[in-house]
């Protein structure tokens, strides 16, 4: 040992060293401002071109659905027998139907209803799902087990069968289905996935290390809920909501197509497609194709946005 030290001292002379440069002493300081969670999600979402195109599409459709019906002088119920089955032209942008009603107005009124149904159904799913799942997540094991079994039973009842059944029961023959019944039917069983998701999140987060750390630092339950559990569940819930909207719109469109939608002259995209089917048979394919494309675009927009959000919220995919 001593011999080695002596050798080292002989070799290492003072001249071999020079004073350290103190100017970059804080090289390991974090220069970039720290990005908060949601701005970071937004930043990642913006990089996803497909999701952004979905978002732009949805915003665009919403704007036209609000303003579109006022963009020409026709009303959605106005019939003009001198102008039936007109092909799309400069006065009737989407043409007219077999009763001479302006399709541009009808299609956008229909889109309005479809969007309202989708958003309302998602909102109700959200409220029921979060409450039910949240309660199950914090309740005792036995209550939790019972609540989840019940939810599973409810969920194995086929979704569209319930919707169809309720629309049949609560709509009088020939009077169509009201918005209220449609929404009720759609949300009756569809809140279950949301509640299962929320319960799972709550259970998992309750036991997480950072909740424990927070608790051991003396944080109250309310603080943990506010600072850790809610912000961390919000992401998956948001994704779920985005994906519930197209499902509800799809269900409504299917109902409309089966003739269980709104009563004419009101329209939804599904009932317009159903009317268009008859139009297509006599060679007026545009009457079907226009609402069909719009339904598909709405579904596309919400689905890619939901997928993009899921990716943006997943910290494992962070670049």
């Amino acid at each position, binding site marked *: 040992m001593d011999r080695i030290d002596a050798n080292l001292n002989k070799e290492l002379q003072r001249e071999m060293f020079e004073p350290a440069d103190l100017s970059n002493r804080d090289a390991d300081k974090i220069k970039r401002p720290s990005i908060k969670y949601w701005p970071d999600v937004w930043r990642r979402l913006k990089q996803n071109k497909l999701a952004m195109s979905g978002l732009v599409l949805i915003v665009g459709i919403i704007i036209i659905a609000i303003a579109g019906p006022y963009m020409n002088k026709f009303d959605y119920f106005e019939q003009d027998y001198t102008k039936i089955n007109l092909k799309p032209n400069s006065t009737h942008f989407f043409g007219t139907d077999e009763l001479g009603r302006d399709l541009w107005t009808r299609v956008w009124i229909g889109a309005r209803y479809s969007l309202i149904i989708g958003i309302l159904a998602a909102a109700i799913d959200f409220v029921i799902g979060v409450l039910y799942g949240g309660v199950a997540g914090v309740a005792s094991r036995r209550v939790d087990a019972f609540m989840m079994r019940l939810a599973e039973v409810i969920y*194995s009842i*086929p979704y569209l*069968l319930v919707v169809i059944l309720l629309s049949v029961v609560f709509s009088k023959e020939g009077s169509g289905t009201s918005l209220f019944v449609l929404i009720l039917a759609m949300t009756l069983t569809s809140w279950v996935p949301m509640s299962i998701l929320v319960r799972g999140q709550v259970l998992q987060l309750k036991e997480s290390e950072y909740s424990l750390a927070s608790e051991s630092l003396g944080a109250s339950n309310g603080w943990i809920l506010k600072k850790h559990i809610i912000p961390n569940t919000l992401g998956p819930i948001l994704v779920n909501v985005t994906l519930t909207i197209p499902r509800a719109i799809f269900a409504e*469109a299917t109902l409309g197509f*089966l003739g269980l939608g709104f009563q004419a002259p009101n329209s939804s995209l599904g009932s317009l*497609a159903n009317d268009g089917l008859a139009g297509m048979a006599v060679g007026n394919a545009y009457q079907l194709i226009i609402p*069909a494309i719009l339904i598909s675009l709405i579904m596309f927009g919400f689905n890619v946005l939901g997928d993009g959000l899921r990716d943006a919220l997943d910290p494992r995919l962070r670049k």
Partner: protein
Amino acid sequence: MKKYIFKRLGMSIVTIWAVVTITFFLMHSVPGDPFRKEGKMSPAVYENLLEKYGLDKSYPEQYMIYLTNLLKGDFGDSMKSKVETVNDMITRGFPVSAYLGVEALLIAIVFGPALGALAALYQNKVPDYIAMIVAIIGISVPSFIMGTMFIQFIAKNINWLPIGGWGEFKHTILPAIALSMMPLAYMARLMRSSMLEVLGQDYIKTAQSKGISKAAVVLKHAVRNAILPIVSVLGTLISNLLVGSFVIEKIFGIPGLGALFVQSITNRDYTLIMGTTIFYAIVLIGMLFLVDLAYMAIDPRIKLTGEGR
């Protein structure tokens, strides 16, 4: 394992019972009764009709009768058809729907995962983009639109493909494809992400470093593990298929159970609506049960002992 199966079976039966009960009371809460508006009929005829369908008894009595008949497999008489019972109609319609459904499911099961696996193997290359375009179209375009577009743009231009009807194999091609698009797309997406995850695992690297051919790595190690999540969603997909068949059968004029259901709704044939709804529910819940069992059998990681969660 056995305990879990029994528990699962018990839950399925409870669910079917719940569906029966809900359907029964919903159908009987419809305002008015089905015979009032059949025009002028003498009070005696009306009374007889009520008696024939058991509508003169109290709700609980009717419910018990319906339930006992159901246990015997009897769905009752149709309210609109004079010649066929609900059972006759179901036995007539179901084979048609089942044939179409199985064909569509086969298409989806073969092409969906294959497309997804290809997309994952060639991530961000041409096959990936093609697969994802197919998947996006399949998920965004509802089956009724797909079906009508097929008729408009394919069947009308290709002479040997009929635009509708039933009887020969060629009648099933377009409806089965239209019906399969959504589950196919769904499976492709699921398979892609699951495959990507599996391909990043250590055992894939191990297999590769042992010098096994690429095909063997993909087939024996990657696909076998990646396919598990697909099995778990099969139940939901089958249920989507069934619902899709309502509209597809309507569009292509196929005399299946779906068309029957839609027709029973338009006719307000309450016993038929009830019968088909319950029949559908039994089929679906049975499928979910079978899929669960299959998943258990396939996934080596699930060894259910004691706690069945």
